[in-house]
């Protein structure tokens, strides 16, 4: 692949020997499996999460193949039930919830705030082990015969009647929940207490605001689902029936307690992605995020309101009509902060210098697809519409738009954006743009037909359907194949780039942010000296209170500083291309 043309202000790698980075200071297994370095833990998570994603994707593949024919040709009904349960469980609990926080969050947060590590490094390592153990338990349950309750585990089917490996799966999810809580606690304390001098709250990157809110949601919501799922296990194993109607229990109570977490969980999945989008758009528009404080507060608003809308999953299952009305109104309100973000991102690009790199393509895709997903959520929030649309493919399409078109696209964009920082290598830009395009096309082809077929009445979780729906399913499955290629290509070139990718300098994108002021990949302790922050967030070349050039002249890693360094180097007779971070 040809050399990557860097955006203005991008600094190429310097030639010659570099000091050992966090990747190279030791190669032993012990130093990886017992590491307390947040960067290594992020890499460990990246590997585990990718494995889970592939397995969840395999289940999706089976579902889509099965659905090409109206009468089921590949899977029996029981196996089909197990397949969509596996897809849901692995994707929700083991991919979407941890993906961005545990990989990019773990890696970038200390760097972005100018800290040497997270507040509790050993807790961080524990969280990875908990995730892995929980994941292995869930996978064992799948291998030992699977679970057929759906990822929502509604009672009393899951607590009394199902013959699958429900308990084992739930214990695995329970343990992974504690992994998530550990990460949340770590981030909250780190962001409160370990910011570099001068890094006030309103100078923080929006990525940090997003992760802070996400961590608060994790801490407040995950325990509720943990105890709920534990009660199902206890009911199965010890017959302490809380949700069993035969004992006067109420199955709807399970749903209340389950969705009290699982709705905020979707904000856990999307907020970090939104944080990434803010970073990418600011960098590749060369502009400060428009309405920074609005975007920051909208994250908080999403976090708070997100806890007040869980009943919209239960409009038709038996909760009171009045409660339904309240939840419907609140669900409309919760869309507003997300819309604010979308407007602000668009306004950021206006009159900016837009540079269409692969991360930027993913970010633009996010904005479009997330908007569609969010708007279709409003349809579902309307009580009368939901009576018709609930439990159809319309719901499936809605959440895949926000979760795949939103969260996953943001994750991929973030991986591309910070790949040079994490690995010290550039990925091949041409292939990356191609893959972004292919996955965008594949995504739309997969999920747009699902809106149609859902509206026409196709129920979810069924694999037998009337013949007139077949055309939509076939289109959707064809799209899924294209989407799979779109995901497969990055997998290949990311691995390729580890050995053959062009070496990256500390700041290939010319971005503003503390993480770009240290080497790529960073040394183990992140910074040789803790920086003192005197500039505003996203102080790119546009109007700021102090004047952008003034702000940036003492900030290493930027164009202005590079010129200064070069001038000084020439004077002092040092070699050119000296990275400013040293």
């Amino acid at each position: 692949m040809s050399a990557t043309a860097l955006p203005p202000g991008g600094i190429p790698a310097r030639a010659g020997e570099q000091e050992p980075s966090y990747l190279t200071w030791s190669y032993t297994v012990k130093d990886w499996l017992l590491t307390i370095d947040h960067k290594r833990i992020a890499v460990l998570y990246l590997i585990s999460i990718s494995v889970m994603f592939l397995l969840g994707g395999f289940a999706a593949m089976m579902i889509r193949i099965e659905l090409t024919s109206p009468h089921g040709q590949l899977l029996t009904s029981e196996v089909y039930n197990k397949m969509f349960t596996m897809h849901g469980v692995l994707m929700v609990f083991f991919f979407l919830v941890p993906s961005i926080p545990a990989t990019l969050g773990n890696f970038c947060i200390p760097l972005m705030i100018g800290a040497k590590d997270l507040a509790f490094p050993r807790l961080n390592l524990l969280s990875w082990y908990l995730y892995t153990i929980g994941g292995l338990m869930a996978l064992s349950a799948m291998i030992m015969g699977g679970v057929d309750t759906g990822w929502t585990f509604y009672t009393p089917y899951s607590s009394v009647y199902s013959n699958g490996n429900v308990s084992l799966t739930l214990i695995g999810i329970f343990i992974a929940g504690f992994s998530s809580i550990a990460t949340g606690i770590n981030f909250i304390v780190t962001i409160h207490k370990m910011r570099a001098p001068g890094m006030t709250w309103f100078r923080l990157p929006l990525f940090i605001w997003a992760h802070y809110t996400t961590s608060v949601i994790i801490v407040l919501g995950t325990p509720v689902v943990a105890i709920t799922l534990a009660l199902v296990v206890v009911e199965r194993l010890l017959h302490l029936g809380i949700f069993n109607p035969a004992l006067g229990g109420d199955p709807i109570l399970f749903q209340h307690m389950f969705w009290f977490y699982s709705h905020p969980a979707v904000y856990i999945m999307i907020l970090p992605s939104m944080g990434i989008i803010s970073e990418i758009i600011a960098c590749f528009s060369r502009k400060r995020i428009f309405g920074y404080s609005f975007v920051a507060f909208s994250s908080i608003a999403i976090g708070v309101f997100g806890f007040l809308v869980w009943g919209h999953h239960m409009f038709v299952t038996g909760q009171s009509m009045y409660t339904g009305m309240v939840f419907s109104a609140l669900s409309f309100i919760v869309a507003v902060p997300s819309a604010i973000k979308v407007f602000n991102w668009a306004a950021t690009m206006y009159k900016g210098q837009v540079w269409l790199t692969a991360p930027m393509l993913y970010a633009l895709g996010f904005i479009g697809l997330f908007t569609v997903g969010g708007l279709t959520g409003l349809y579902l929030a309307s009580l009368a519409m939901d009576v018709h649309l609930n439990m159809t493919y319309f719901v499936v399409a809605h959440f895949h738009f926000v979760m795949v078109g939103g969260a996953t696209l943001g994750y991929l964009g973030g991986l591309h954006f910070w790949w040079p920082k994490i690995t010290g290598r550039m990925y091949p830009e041409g292939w990356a743009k191609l893959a972004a395009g292919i996955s965008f096309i594949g995504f739309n082809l997969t999920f747009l037909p699902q809106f149609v077929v859902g509206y026409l009445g196709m129920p979810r979780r069924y694999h037998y359907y009337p013949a007139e729906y077949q055309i939509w399913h076939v289109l959707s499955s064809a799209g899924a194949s294209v989407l799979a290629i779109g995901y497969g290509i990055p997998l290949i070139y990311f691995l390729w780039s580890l050995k053959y990718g062009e070496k990256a300098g500390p700041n290939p994108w010319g971005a503003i942010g503390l993480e770009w002021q240290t080497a790529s990949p960073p040394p183990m302790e992140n910074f040789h000296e803790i920086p003192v922050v005197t500039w505003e967030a996203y102080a790119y070349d546009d109007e700021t209170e102090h004047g952008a050039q003034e702000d940036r002249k003492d900030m290493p890693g930027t164009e202005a500083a590079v010129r200064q360094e070069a001038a000084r180097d020439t004077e002092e007779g040092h070699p050119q291309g000296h990275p400013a971070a040293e």
Partner: protein
Amino acid sequence: MEHETIHPAAEHQTHHVTQPKVYYIVYCWLILFMALTIGASYINMGGGLNNLVAMTIAVIKAVLVVMFFMQVKSGTRLTWVWAAIGFIWLIFLFATLGDYMTRNWVHVPGW
């Protein structure tokens, strides 16, 4: 309830140290409130009022433990905020009761 704070000799620790006297006084109050709770349960004030009394006393005891034994009163504001948020968030969870209380308001067929 007054308490003196002393700054321990060790450097870097600017932690307030609550005096044992405070702990003993709070403990006496806790035992007293406990006795009050048990006593009140034997007086029939009507179910609603009994419940209110019992829960109020429990909340007072919890606040005493949080403020003094857990040293939130002499701690940082961030600690106090977190302690408060945990209990406040329970209120969101208890909004579930709204469903149960309104289910029977108007009988709508099939709903």
